[in-house]
Structures are given as C-alpha cells and as structure tokens.
C-alpha cells in the first residue's frame, strides 16, 4: 500500500470504529458533493447598522493604515496618482500590468510618468494594480493574478497603488466568492488570489507594530466611480 492509500484507509478505519452508525459510503459522498455544490454561507456579520457601504469601506481601508481617495473617472485617477507621487516625493515612474482599464488613464500633458509593464524584478519604487473587487467588511482589496495584474507588483515595490471600481465593491467575503466564481467558473481560481488589507507590517520586535515589513511600506487605494 502506498502512503496515500495508507492514510486514507487509516482515516476510514478510525471513523468507522468510532462512529457506530457511520452513514453509508453513498450518503457520505453525497453529503460532500452537496456541501461543495451549495457552499452554504454560515454566519455573516451584520453590517446594516454601519453606514453606507462605501463609507464603511473607506473607514476600514484607513483603519488598515492605507490611504484612500475616490475619483469620478479613470481620467481623474491618473491625476490623483501623479499628485500622490509628487506628495510623497516619489519618482514619476510606475510599473503596471496590461489591464485594459489602464488604457483609460489619461496622464497630464508634458509630465506623464514613465510607464513600465510586466512583472517586477524588485527594483521598482511604485507599482500600480487594478483590483477585481473590494470587501467593505474589512477594507480588503481582492487581486487576481494574470498578465493584467502580475502578482509580484503587489509585494515587491515600496509603494503600491491599487485602483478598484466602485461597482466591484462587495459587502462581505461571501459576495466576493460569488464574483470570483462568476469570473473563473465553479471550483476554479486564478493561480493567486491576493486579499490585501493595508501595507505590510510586523510586530515581531517586542510586539511593537511597525509598518513596512517585506511587502509595500505604503498602500494607496483609489476608488473609481466610473461605469465600466
């Protein structure tokens, strides 16, 4: 017997010997199929007493030590990004993926930043990503991997800027799974799904919280209120 079979048969043996009326193997298989198929939601935190979802999202993003702003269009988003870079004395040089929505960013004439595309090699100061969704419950951005938004951009730069469309904000994690299933199909996901809540941090030195561990030191979240 190989290790796989040994482990599985040991599990079955332990379960049978301890549960006098273990349901038949067909019933058990059905229970598993049913749960995966129907993926019941369980207890969901009630956010109805909290303010409007967008306000809640902003509050939670800021509580996570990220900065937040909201713009009316992708054109405005470009201006907001440039403004942010100036404000923080960052070079006007940005790495980003091939997300189509980036095409709508209109950089100011004359001072348009230098744009690089493709994955990061760790030498970038600023990277830009577009999130697939945002979770208001915790102020979390949901990013999926692919040439549109390579995962390395989420972790290697010192400053990470994330755009999220207001239409893609969801109340809770469960709504966000629904959107993922719609995008990738049942039981499938992109290679990486990053749920990001604030810039990286560590409390390993005397439990003092310090921002900027191995991931970005700064995270700026921009909600774009433009119909897609």
């Amino acid at each position, binding site marked *: 017997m190989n*290790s*796989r079979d*040994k*482990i599985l048969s*040991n*599990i079955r043996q*332990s*379960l049978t*010997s*301890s*549960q006098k009326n273990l349901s038949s193997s067909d019933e*058990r298989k059905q*229970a*598993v199929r049913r*749960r*995966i198929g129907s*993926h*019941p939601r*369980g207890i*969901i*935190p*009630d956010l109805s007493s909290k303010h409007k979802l967008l306000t809640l999202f902003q509050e939670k993003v800021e509580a*996570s030590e990220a900065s937040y702003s909201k713009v009316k269009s992708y054109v405005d988003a470009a201006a907001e990004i440039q403004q942010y870079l100036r404000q923080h004395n960052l070079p006007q040089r940005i790495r980003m993926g091939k997300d189509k929505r980036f095409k709508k960013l209109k950089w100011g004439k004359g001072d348009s930043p230098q744009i690089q595309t493709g*994955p990061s090699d*760790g030498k970038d100061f600023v990277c830009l990503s577009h999130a697939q969704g945002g979770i208001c*419950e*915790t102020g*979390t951005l949901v990013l999926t991997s*692919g*040439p549109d938004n*390579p*995962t*390395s951009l989420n*972790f290697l730069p010192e400053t990470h800027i994330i755009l999220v469309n207001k239409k893609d904000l969801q109340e809770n*994690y*469960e709504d966000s*799974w629904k959107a993922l299933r719609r995008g990738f199909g049942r*039981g499938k996901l*992109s*290679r*990486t*799904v*990053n*749920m*990001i*809540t604030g810039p*990286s*941090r*560590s*409390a*390993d*030195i*005397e439990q*003092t919280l*310090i921002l*900027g*561990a*191995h*991931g*970005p030191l700064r995270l700026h979240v921009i909600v774009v209120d433009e119909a897609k």
Partner: protein
Amino acid sequence: MKISSPEFKNNACNALDDNQLQGALRHVRKNFVKKRADARRDLPEFDALRDSARAIKDHTLAHLDLYLEHYEKKVIESGGKVHWATNAAEARGIIMDICRKSNARTVTKGKSMITEEISLNEFLEANEIQPVETDLGEYIIQLRGENPSHIIAPAVHLNMDQIRDEFRKAHTHLPAERSMDEPETLLREARQILRDKFLSADVGITGANFLVAETGSSLIVTNEGNGDLTQIIPRIHVVVASIEKIVPTLEDMAQITRVLARSATGQETTVYSTLSTGPKRKTDEDGPEEYHVVLLDNGRSSMLGTEFSEMLRCIRCGACMNHCPVYQAIGGHAYGWVYPGPMGSVLTPTLIGIDKAGHLPNASTFCGRCEAVCPMHIPLPKMMRFWREREFEQHLSAPSHRRNLTLWAWFAKHPSLYRFVTSIGMRILAIWGGSAKRINWLPMAGGWTKFRVLPAPEGPTFIRQYQRAKRNAR
C-alpha cells in the same frame, strides 16, 4: 528538533529565574489578551462564528477521506502535484527529492509550524541546502539557533537588545557603527537582507492555514508579506500541510478566518490572505512553474475518533497559550518541543509519546481559560486530564508522585484520621506562617515556595467550621 520536554521541570525553573524572559513575557500578558478581548467585543457575531467554525471542522473531519480526495483531484486539475506522507521522515524525503530534481541550493521559507514538526531545517542543512526563514521573528531565532517559543510570535521571548546584538553579529558586511536604536531600523535591515534571498532562492516552502477542497487551493495568512514573496518568486512552490487543514469551501474558510485573526492578534483580518492554486498559468508572467503539496499525516489519522479527536479542529491561533497562566509564567521554550502552551500539552504527547511529554499535561492549573478562549471550542483541560490518566495507568509518573497519591487516597478513605492529621498540619503551618501569615519556605517543598508564597491557614478547618455552623443552626 531536539526534544527537551522530559526536562520540563528544570526548564520551567530556569525560565522563572530568567529576568530578561520574564520581562518579555509581560508583552504576552498585556497585548495579546487585551487585543483579543477588544476584537471579540467589536464583533457581535463572534461567538456564533465560533460555533459555526466548530461545526464546519466537525463535519469536515467526519468526511476527511472524501474531502482529501476531492482536494487532491482539484490540485491535479490545476496543474499541481500532491504528495502524501505518513510521517515526518517521508515528508522530508519528498521535499528533498523536489529540491534535488531542481538542483536547489537555497530555500526560502514562510512561517510554518509543520516544518518545525518535521525538523525540516536541520535536515536541509545536513543535505547542503540552505533554508532561510523569512518571517522576521523566525529569521531572528534562526540566527540565534533557537526554536520558536510561540506558534504565531516565534521571537516573543526576546527583547530589542538581544535582537540588535544578533544583527550586529550576523550582518558583518554592514558598518559596525551604524545606529540601531529603533525597531524600525532593525526591520529595514532585515528587509534589505532578506530581499536578496527572496530573489535568489530556488525553492519556496510555505505552510498552509487552510486547504480548500472546492478549488484545490492553499491559503496562507500573514502580515509581513514574506509568505507571498516565498510563494511567488522562486521557480518552485512547496506547500507542507497536515491533513486536518482541509475545509470544504471558500465560504467555510471565511467562517473560520473571521475567528482566526481575531483570536490570534486581535486583528479583523491579517494584511495578506492569499489563495494559491496550482503553478502559474500559461499566460502568467510571474509565479512558480511548479506547485507541490506535501500532505502530512504524522499520527493524525489515528487521533480521529479517539478522545483526542477534537484537537484536530485546532487552527493554531495561539489564544490558548496567550491566556494560559503557566505559559505566561514560563514562556514557550520550557515545553521542550514544537508546540507550547495548552494546545502543545495535548498535542505533544500524541506526537512524541506520553513517556517523553508526560510533564506537559501536568503543567496546568485547570483554570479553564484556554478552553474558554479557544475559537474552535477545543476542550483542552479535559484532554490534559485524559493524558494524566494514561500516564498514571502506564506507570509513567514518578514513584514519589504515585506513593504520595496512594498515601493520600488511603487517608481520604479514613475520614476521621484524615481530619486529625490535617488539623495538626494546619496548626503547624499557622505557627510557621508567623505574624505575617505567609510562608516563604517549607522543608521538602522548596521548589514550590521558591516562586510562590503560601498563605498560612487561618482559623479552623472547613469541616470544623461546617460542623460548628450546623450545630449553631440547630
């Protein structure tokens, strides 16, 4: 990892004498406990979520074989490989094979207790592969040649001075006179050094907080981002996870992560929660080319259905140790193996044997706080009692211990004699306590009184008082 659990008593004494450690442990008492309480207060559904989390794990464990099969199928579908390991040696062998095939020389590691359980670092080093711990706490203790003293805050036993000294010793290429007064500076230094390691590693090894059967994904939760750099930069990503990490669906995962971060650090969620599914896809421009999962049993399948079965619900949040008066007093190293605190006192004997770990379930005041705060409702005190019984049945407890118990049992069966002897004893103790009514030292109990003050008994015994009250009531 070397096992020093049999020397628990000595370890504990040394820990109590260690002023530096005692200072560091104050952070555990202060921070962790308060943060969890605040987080619980802020989420009205917290207790309902705990019940939900327990139900999910119970259902999963009752169908563990089937969920594992489904999970395996999904991993394969997404292009990954699943390797099954019945024990630690097999798991190490599998990982070594993967490293050899790719001629790996360095391995970066995300924080993972399971790789501590299988002593992976020692093994890799012995095979000329350099493992680099990348979680800041793990990195520090790796430099010091130590083991983690806490399952989520591995360097909680150290203070800033010790960390600074270690960095000066290890990072000799940096100017010796550099300023290192702020914790920020230390963190930046570690970031810089580990950056190069991330970028040059051949293999990245992480654990998993959950394995999701529905999608064949592994989830890790971190705050530093080190786990993510470990699993996206190197050419090969290896996940090492024990079989009970499985949950059926993404919804089930979310139920449990809601209580996990709050119980661990008091956060609503960690900064990064990352699902990894298979290797990078054809069109992806980054991510690992190979994705391997090593599924480790190491005794767990035999725990199913026994009195220790419920331990398999554990999500390694650390709340039980944060709230344990024994852990708070002696820290994690005294427990002598990978898992400290109440969860370790239950788990360690199942993994290394009650003959070696018998002291651990005895190191409990049975105050019940661990069970009260455990997000998965694991009855830790009950299970420690099971171990005590087993230890006694197997004649593993010390002869003096057994003699005393037998003696006590004999007296307890002879109530009048018992009362006579205890009343004499009490009178002696009362005199011994003197006017301060405190006993700082007792013959044959110096070990006990060294760290505690025994209040001298005052007034008559309970039975005396009871009888008197009954008489007066008549």
